[in-house]
């Protein structure tokens, strides 16, 4: 039985803003095993990025974690001090962010930004640091790494910047790598290269990956387990094959139908009717009920809990709750 690396339980996170309370995460829970890739899917605003930010504990000042545990290698991250969590960030858990164009500091060189991780988490001699940085760049398939380390971010292309970010993330030898929509800003060919690269790196380093995306095709290729989120809570949680062959939640089925596949005609594409709810005033009961094709009267009153309906297949839907 592979060890569980990260276990999130009953996470509730609200944002206390000028306009009211945004109920961003409600009872979110899932776990990641060692070496596993977990895909976190959902539309924009469903809480995927907030979940990642909470793991890293990098939330805006308006956020408050009201309940929950994030157990990583035996320790609850939410209970750690600022210093303790700084030791983990960048070192045991590393994150690659969405927009490579703005995520690198424009006034520091590539070498500087990679070396920071090495200097602050390990004690290394200067020469070692430079060598390690060059090796990391080689790992992420950046050509002419000796030249690139002296460059500034604005001199690199989008794809290169993204790779530098991965190199930065890997510098700490992390156990868990969080990728927040890493391919959204890239064009399709670069995207394919990126996926290959990640596969290669995962094989080489044996890291677990939390892959956040709204693109189901990426999930199909890269993920072992999948968590589908909607409006701040988990609606379905299972392995990738079960998700695609036997999805249980109505939202998942609609998501899958909305992905164009070779062979389908344009008329057959279905759009999910309605819009994503405003989390200031989320719908009562099950938050998906306004858009659900299989809605029942109980759905408007009671929020369905996440239950294991089949082997290792969890759903939060009243269709499967015969209580």
């Amino acid at each position, binding site marked *: 039985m592979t060890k569980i690396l990260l276990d999130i339980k009953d996470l509730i996170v609200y944002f206390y803003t000028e306009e009211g309370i945004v109920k961003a995460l409600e009872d979110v829970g899932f776990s990641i095993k060692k070496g596993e890739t977990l895909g976190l899917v959902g539309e924009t605003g469903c809480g995927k990025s907030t979940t990642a930010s909470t793991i890293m504990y990098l939330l805006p000042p308006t956020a408050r974690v009201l309940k929950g545990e994030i157990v990583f290698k035996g320790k609850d991250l939410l209970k750690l001090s600022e210093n303790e969590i700084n030791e983990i960030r960048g070192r045991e858990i590393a994150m690659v962010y969405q927009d490579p164009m703005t995520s690198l*500091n424009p006034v*520091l060189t590539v070498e500087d930004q990679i070396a920071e991780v090495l200097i602050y988490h390990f004690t290394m001699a200067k020469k070692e640091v430079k060598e390690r940085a060059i090796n990391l760049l080689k790992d992420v398939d950046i050509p002419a790494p000796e030249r690139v380390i002296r460059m500034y971010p604005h001199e690199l292309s989008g794809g290169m910047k993204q790779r530098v970010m991965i190199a930065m993330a890997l510098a700490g030898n992390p156990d868990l790598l969080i990728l927040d929509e890493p391919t959204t800003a890239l064009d399709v060919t670069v995207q394919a290269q990126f996926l290959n690269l990640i596969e290669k790196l995962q094989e080489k380093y044996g890291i677990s990956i939390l892959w956040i995306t709204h693109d189901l095709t990426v999930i199909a290729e890269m993920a072992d387990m999948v968590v589908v989120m909607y409006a701040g809570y988990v609606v379905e949680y299972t392995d990738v094959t079960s998700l695609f062959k036997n999805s249980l939640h109505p939202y998942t089925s609609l998501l899958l139908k909305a992905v164009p596949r070779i062979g389908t005609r344009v008329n057959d594409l279905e759009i999910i009717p309605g819009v994503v709810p405003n989390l200031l005033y989320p719908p009562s009961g099950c938050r998906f009920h306004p858009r659900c094709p299989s809605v029942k009267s109980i759905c408007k009153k009671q929020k369905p809990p996440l239950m294991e309906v089949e082997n290792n297949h969890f759903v939060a839907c009243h269709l499967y709750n015969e209580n």
Partner: protein
Amino acid sequence: MSGYMIKRVLLLIPIVLGVTLIVFLIMHLAPGDPVRLMLGERATPETIIKVRHELGLDRPVHIQYFVWLSNIIKGNLGNSITTGRPVLETIVERMPATLELTITSLILATIIAIFLGSISALHRGGWIDQTTRLFALFGISMPYFWFALMLLMILSLKLGWLPVYGRGGPIWTLNGLKHAILPVAVLSLANLALLTRLTRSTMLDILGKDYIKTARGKGLPKKLVIYKHALRNAIIPIVTIVGLRVAYTFGGAVVTETVFAWPGMGRLIVEAIYQRDIPVVQGVTLMFGIVVMLANLFIDMLYAYLDPRITIE
């Protein structure tokens, strides 16, 4: 690199000349004959005509300007109409005082502003922030000649702590320092207030940027993120604004020197304007123009050094 510098200096020359041309034209529009002012009411018309001819003031305006221009190249700024002394000499005498005042107050204001503004941004909403913002608001609303008088009144006249006027020698001497405290404080106020506000808002803006999130995500200590990542970026727009404030600070020096009887170029030019002493006005304006240009050049180079996105082309 030096080619770039030379090009910049060459581009600046027409600007400096433009400045002097404008001032020259203004002075010549002035009603009020400098010669008459100088010689007094009882001068006879013949004397006036004679003196005007001697000083070359009866020639057409554009010829006067060209004569003046050609003299500059030879390093001759003419003689003061009122005192007859070479303008260059007077300027050299007075310049150190003004430079001392201006440079000290600018540097002081910048350093303190960056410090205060950063702390303010970091503890946003806290009492330090509120106090600093309030102080900065008062600072940009304060008429500094009035502030000077108030300080003079309280600290010099009532309490007798500091001397009332004049310069007591170079600023690194004790006497010099005592005389310089009030003028420098007054001149720094507006810049300090403005730059503090600027630093605060720039830092707040930068602290919200993605690359700061990346830096925090790497587990770097907060202090490092602030100084190395945030401040390094914030300094760029701040330096630009400081450059823009150089000209303004010279203007402020004029008033400050007047109030504190500080023997600098500011006071010189005000007196010269009253007396329609055109060569002095021209000469000092030229000096101001050159110094402002040099300061801007320096700031530009600093800017290019700090921001790797700007290449010297």
